[in-house]
């Protein structure tokens, strides 16, 4: 067995491990609570002491995706027996489903705006990052710093003129407006991250390709892009997560057609008091994809959150 003075002892490892696992478990409680509340009945969700073991129900999810109206006995009879399982859940509460809620559409908006802005951001970002990495761009450092500094502005501070500008251009509450806005917000991140990734690809590959008769564009497309694929993918996921989570601009600039899920979820209310299972169900559907992406990203997390300033 090899011996190293810097290798912690077995006891130290156990001690450190137990403390870290304990912290992880505590930090997970609020998240598990969100998921669990989504499957509780309204009564269970506000029980005291809080219940950990309960009979799971999909009522929260049904309430999230539907609008319901309170029905009298006569109305219930006139409507006939429930035809679907979600109808049945609504009937048990003395309500009938009157139609789908707006959640589905808000979620779809998040998907459209998130993916749209990410795609645009990656196209512009890769091009700019390649140029900054490979060519002598005049004022390069100043331009790069300018790109980064756009991120320091409080969103509310630029929201006033953006609000005025969008209103004049008819971009208020539109998908296109939000896509352009989030693209601009995320560009600093994508340019800085991608520049780091492209810097790591040896220039010799491209030089060899150029000597073989490739044009600059071909060398960029056929040599650099495939090499940077992992970097581009993880940068894309970061942009997607930021656009997905963004709240300040969304709440100020959208109200209807282009409203995303983050401003919508807190406005979900039930027929009597706040419908916490429905809120939790909406939050669960919205948060779980991000957790999956976090697991995919784990190797590049550090780079992403520090704009490439720290690399492992």
């Amino acid at each position: 067995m090899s011996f190293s003075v810097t290798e912690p002892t077995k006891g130290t490892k156990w001690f450190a491990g137990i403390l870290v696992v304990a912290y992880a478990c505590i930090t997970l409680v609020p998240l598990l609570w969100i998921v669990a509340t989504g499957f509780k009945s309204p009564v269970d969700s506000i029980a005291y002491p809080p219940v950990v073991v309960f009979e799971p129900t999909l009522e929260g999810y049904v309430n999230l995706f539907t609008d319901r109206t309170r029905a009298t006995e006569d109305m219930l009879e006139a409507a006939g027996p429930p035809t679907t399982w979600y109808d049945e859940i609504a009937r048990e509460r003395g309500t009938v489903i009157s139609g789908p809620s707006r959640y589905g559409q808000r979620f779809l908006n998040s998907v459209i705006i998130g993916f749209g802005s990410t795609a645009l951001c990656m196209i512009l970002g890769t091009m700019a990052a390649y140029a900054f990495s490979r060519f002598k761009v005049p004022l390069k450092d100043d331009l790069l710093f300018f790109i980064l500094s756009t991120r320091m502005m409080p969103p509310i501070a630029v929201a006033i003129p953006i609000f005025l500008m969008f209103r004049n251009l008819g971009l208020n509450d539109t998908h296109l407006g939000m896509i352009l806005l989030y693209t601009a917000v995320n560009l600093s991140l994508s340019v800085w991250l991608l520049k780091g990734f492209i810097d790591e690809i040896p220039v010799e590959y491209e030089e060899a390709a150029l000597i073989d008769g490739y044009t600059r564009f071909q060398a960029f497309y056929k040599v650099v892009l495939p090499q940077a694929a992992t970097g581009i993918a993880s940068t894309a996921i970061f942009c997607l997560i930021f656009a997905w989570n963004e709240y300040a601009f969304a709440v100020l600039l959208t109200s209807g057609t282009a409203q995303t899920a983050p401003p919508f979820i807190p406005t979900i209310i039930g027929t009597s008091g706040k419908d916490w299972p429905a809120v939790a169900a909406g939050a669960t559907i919205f948060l779980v994809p991000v957790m999956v992406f976090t697991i995919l990203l784990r190797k590049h997390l550090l780079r992403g959150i520090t704009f490439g300033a720290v690399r492992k």
Partner: protein
Amino acid sequence: MTYSPIDRAAAKTPDGVARRIRGLSDRTIAWIFVAPTIFLLLAVNIFPLIWTIRLSFTNFRVNRPNNAVEWVGLRNYERILTDPDVWNTMQATAHFLIWTITLQVLIGFTLAYLINKKFRGNDLWTTIIVFPMMLSPAVVGNFWTFLYQPQIGLFNYVVAFFTGVDPASFSMIGDVHLAPWAIVIADTWMWTPFVMLICLAGLRSIPDSIYEAAECDRASKWRQFWTITIPMALPFLMLAVLFRGIENFKMFDLVVQLTGGGPGNTTTLTSIDLKREAFEKWRTGYSSAYAVILFVTVFGLASIYVKALNKVKER
């Protein structure tokens, strides 16, 4: 044989154009690649900023477009800087900043130090700890109001369980003294992993050989910690503080969902106050001046800090 889209595009391009594209100098290509990014940033960031600065010298109100817009010079700035309410929000922001950063650095660094002991499965647990910071602050903040409910909330239950106080006797969000701490707790829960990740990178960047040399010199573990670990991880720690400082100075989504700035004005951070002035009271000119002041403050403090950071790095 397969053709990539670019091959097909190349085949269809007329000879003359193709020759011209092939003949583009690197300098031209560089500009073609950089221009769209710069253009978009100018349009969505710089143009609005200049507009904000212009508006800040006027009494313009968005909700009264027919009123004559007058130049008022520096009056908006004067009013903001002499307004005691603004200074109160600055104080609330300072309280929030100081406590979140202190707690996050202490807990984050400790966690990173423990994880760096390389116990089995440390990668898995690191990923789990990171979850909160990747989630939507608005959605999570909204749910924390549920955890903070007196009587039924999980947070109150846990506090009651360990201390024996009545869970209905205190309200984290409704109490003037507790609300500032409610937002500190939620933010610390959410962003400690951020500091942890950066500290971990710092600790992992220290070469083993330095510790081996210290062992040879019979330096105690305690001494090694203060003379090797801390100084070498310091630039990383400072970077984490910079990022958290800028982010929390801009803090809006988490806190607005948690407390909405209340009760009273106890948790009205500057961003929340600015939003009220701009989008609820519609004092556009006044709030533009407010925005400029905030931006100058962040930018000024950040550049001073970066200078200090570079000095530490050079050591």
